[in-house]
């Protein structure tokens, strides 16, 4: 089954809140993981691994550095889901 953009955003927000304590309201498409949400590389990888499981996608390590914003991640996940 395919997840919509909104569902992926909501799901990512859940994972980000769980990992960092950042309120889900603050997680928006234009937010940068590092500059706005202050997510370090270890938390980023934890979120990526959990997102792979949650959405049934593979996010290659070399792709992770291109995911600058929440919107980048949402786009990657929705276009690559199986």
């Amino acid at each position, binding site marked *: 089954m395919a997840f919509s953009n909104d569902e992926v955003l909501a799901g990512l927000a859940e994972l980000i809140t769980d990992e960092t*304590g950042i309120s889900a309201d603050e997680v928006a498409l234009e937010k940068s993981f590092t500059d706005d949400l202050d997510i370090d590389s270890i938390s980023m990888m934890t979120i990526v691994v959990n997102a792979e499981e949650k959405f049934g996608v593979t996010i290659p390590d070399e792709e992770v550095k291109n995911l600058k914003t929440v919107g980048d991640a949402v786009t990657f996940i929705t276009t690559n889901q199986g």
Partner: protein
Amino acid sequence: MSNPRIVVTGIGASSPIGGTAPESWSALLAGASGARTLEYDWVEQYNLPVTFAAQAKVRPDTVLERPVAKRLDPSSQFALVAALEAWADAGSPEVDPERLGVDFATGIGGLWTLLDAWDTLREKGPRRVLPMTVPMLMPNAAAGNLSLHFGARAYARTVASACASSTESIVNAVEHLRAGLADVVIAGGTESVIHPVTIASFSSMQALSKRNDSPETASRPGSIDRDGFVMGEGAAVLILETEEHAKARGAKIYAAVVGGGVTADSYHITANDPEGWGAARAVKMALEMADASPDDVTHINAHATSTPVGDPNEYVALHHVFGDRIGEIPVSATKASTGHLLGGTGALEAIFTVLALRDRVAPPTINLTEQDPAVPFLISGDPQPLGDGPQFAISNSFGFGGHNAVAAFASV
């Protein structure tokens, strides 16, 4: 130049009998037991020969914020909870970060994190093994996280000497402070390894009590029918400080840590030397550092784990130092109440020793049935008053590997 005097200005504990140090102390004086039947599916699933343990009274992940807790193995969670309590109890001292140290202990480290990751790897593959796995399971995780949390930059050291670990950490901290290398040290130890693997291993070596029908009375150090130790978990932390620094900031002072001794048996990997000379040397070193004689000692918190061979060996060792006067010194074997916190045990017992000096009472040793004539310590199921006058106590810890560690405390 004389060595600076080192004092205890803060205490914190998360133990099987209380979520804080004062709660643990009150429960100990009231004769509580922290041992309970384990309510986990895995007890039956693996048909474990021992079905009980002394779990911590309060789970640390119910105290810490979730994003903090999920980056810590339970052993580090306990360490942080106890350290936060001790730090607040010390009045959250203002310290130059480069003069604040951490000396912390664990016997085993992040066992749950390691084995959970192994399960994840086998069930779901390497991609699902979280990046924090190694930094969570490493034995220095508690020390590193405490350094990070409290801004301690003098040093952050980990001792792993099994059940002697956290007494050794206290001794190390005292030596570091006496050498002038820090003003304040967060010292203690932690353990959280009540897991099928440790229960299976300790049972195989016949080290654990098998009184599954009566967990609360299973830990009975000094009693003739003792049959092994009861595994506990939790952490304990002491804020140690030079007296000069403590007085300058008007801190309350519980007691002084006046000596410490650390030796090794080189006898057997698990059994202590039945002749007890290694342990006796550690006691003598602690007394020498304190510039005290055996006659000064008014209270002993014994290692006394409730194993058939360990308890008499400790008696033999102490008899070497104290002679027949050992029978006149009020001894407490507090593992009767708390179980054995392994790497956390020495620090918890150090706190009990400090509070015994403050309150002038040796806490009770519960579950005494008939005292073993081979362990004729002056122990009691009731609190024993220590009387007036200056008090001086030692706390002993011995560990697999042949480690002996003793810390000495004086009333202030």
